[in-house]
């Protein structure tokens, strides 16, 4: 508080007022688009444009799960993104630790590679990735079909690379891996080695050290990495678009997108209800991730 003269006090309040005004305008700009999704989803007669509902109803939400395949889409999204997030947390948790503690020659190249991978636009990778996964898929089918016959198709739904859960989960996880590895590496860098060294002196093996010492300490970092991976994978639209085709596997963004493309009358109430359902987990995750935001990004600034 560096206030002295009366005129300076006045200046300070004026600056504060400007800050209030600016932030309010900014907040309005940021919040307004959300209103439509919120209001129209409870609107019995929802329109494309924003208007105050005449009749409030839950019918849209019910319709999402009954008339449309909302339940299926929700399950698929949760399953795929959840699995990918778990996979990322495990790989990045261990990998970040290894990356932090190793002093090998390949450490720096690996780190540079991670940073460079992060800048590659996914759309540029999708085509060759598709061809590659197609090859893998055909190979898998060639192996499974002789053994399982007609059941092979059902199995491939789960283990297939194209139009199969496994492929999408692996690719989604891989896309989140660079950032997650970086977060965990930076996190472990900041963790003093004292704990591990004490455990080492007590005679603990690597696995014991990881289980009893590292994991409890690493939880905040894992939470941050997991939340960011989740939010990013949850919003991913391109990968499901390319790699899924059968209706049983469709995820929320695809369902939402296709619902918007109906040629005949678009049910905006249904659409916004679906959008809200899709929006909710992301916002909830964001709420938890908030306190990690500054640390992660300033860690990113410092390296």
């Amino acid at each position: 508080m560096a206030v002295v003269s009366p005129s300076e006090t006045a200046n300070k309040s004026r600056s504060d007022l400007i800050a209030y005004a600016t932030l309010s305008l900014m907040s309005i700009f940021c919040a307004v688009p959300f209103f439509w999704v919120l209001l129209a989803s409870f609107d019995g007669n929802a329109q494309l444009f924003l208007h105050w509902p005449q009749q409030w109803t839950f019918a849209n939400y019910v319709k999402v799960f009954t008339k449309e395949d909302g339940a299926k889409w929700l399950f698929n999204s949760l399953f795929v993104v959840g699995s990918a997030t778990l996979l990322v947390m495990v790989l990045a948790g261990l990998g970040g630790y290894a990356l932090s503690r190793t002093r090998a020659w390949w450490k720096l190249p690996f780190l540079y590679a991670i940073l460079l991978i992060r800048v590659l636009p996914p759309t540029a990778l999708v085509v060759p990735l598709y061809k590659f996964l197609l090859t893998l898929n055909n190979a898998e089918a060639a192996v499974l079909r002789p053994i399982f016959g007609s059941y092979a198709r059902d199995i491939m739904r789960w283990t297939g690379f194209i139009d199969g859960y496994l492929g999408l989960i692996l690719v989604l996880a891989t896309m989140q891996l660079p950032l997650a590895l970086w977060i965990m590496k930076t996190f472990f860098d900041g963790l003093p080695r004292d704990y591990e060294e004490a455990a080492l002196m007590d005679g603990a093996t690597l696995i014991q050290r990881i289980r009893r010492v590292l994991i409890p300490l690493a939880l905040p970092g894992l939470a941050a990495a997991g939340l960011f991976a989740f939010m990013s994978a949850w919003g991913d639209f391109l990968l499901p678009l390319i790699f899924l085709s059968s209706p049983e596997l469709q995820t929320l963004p695809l369902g939402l997108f296709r619902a918007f493309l109906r040629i005949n009358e678009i049910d905006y109430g249904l659409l916004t209800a679906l959008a809200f359902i899709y929006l909710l987990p992301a916002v909830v995750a964001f709420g938890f991730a908030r306190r990690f935001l500054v640390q992660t990004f300033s860690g990113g600034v410092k390296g």
Partner: protein
Amino acid sequence: MARNSHEKRAERQWLLILLPSLVLLLAFVIYPAVYSIYLSFTNEALTGAAALRPRFVGFRNYVRLFNDAKFWNSLFVTFVFVIGSAVIGQFLLGLISAIALRRPIRFRRVFSSIILLPNAAPEVVAGFMWISMLAGGDNATLTRIVSFFGVTPADWLQVFPLSMIIIVNIWRGIATAMILLTAGLSTIPAEIYEAARMDGATPSQMFRRITLPLMMPTILLYMLISAVSTIAVFGLVYALTRGGPGGATEVVSIYIYNQSFTAFQLGYGAAVAVVALVISLILGIAYVRAMKVEV
């Protein structure tokens, strides 16, 4: 360097732990990137004569690229998109927010939560929310706001498509800018501003001669990061305009998608992809060098 057997064993353990991640990254990122380059030299396609017997065609795709007006258009559109939203829009609004939030006012958490919210919305939802804002005919929210101020409205997404996607991307990206710039601002010790006060600096002098110069590294880093991630934007623009009308918003990622999955020209699409990869890598290398990675 690891010397004794204990250390060597530890190093082998680290490598082993990282192996799965390495395999995934190699298989699903590095290999496709390299394969892209190979593809770009072929005439692969999903339909037509070439689908059955793809041939190596050398630089033909790149020559075609060079002469393709739509390709240059997508580069131009992407360039304007990046400059408009990342370099100018998000940066300015993010900076203003970051500075305003440093003042000791109430409701800071509420304000910052709301400003960060657009970033939490998935791309597709964000796109649709803005379609409601922009394309509802006479009742579109933006139209109503603008008419309130006496300005003649228009069919926004049709008449000003590029400006609109820039605005939407700004809306979505203020969060990143604000967070990075806030982190940068907080590295400047408060005592420096007190010393400047004793030296007689006005707030604007403090900003111009102390804050801005000291923030330069952060700002540079921010520019590189946001440029790279803006080049990669796909879903948001696709949901809003699908790249139209008439290619007015066909950013390079949409152009690649259209060429590969709509026109099924995999070889040609790969060539465009390679160009995008190279541009991103150049920015990425600048970013890595500016980052001064700590081992």
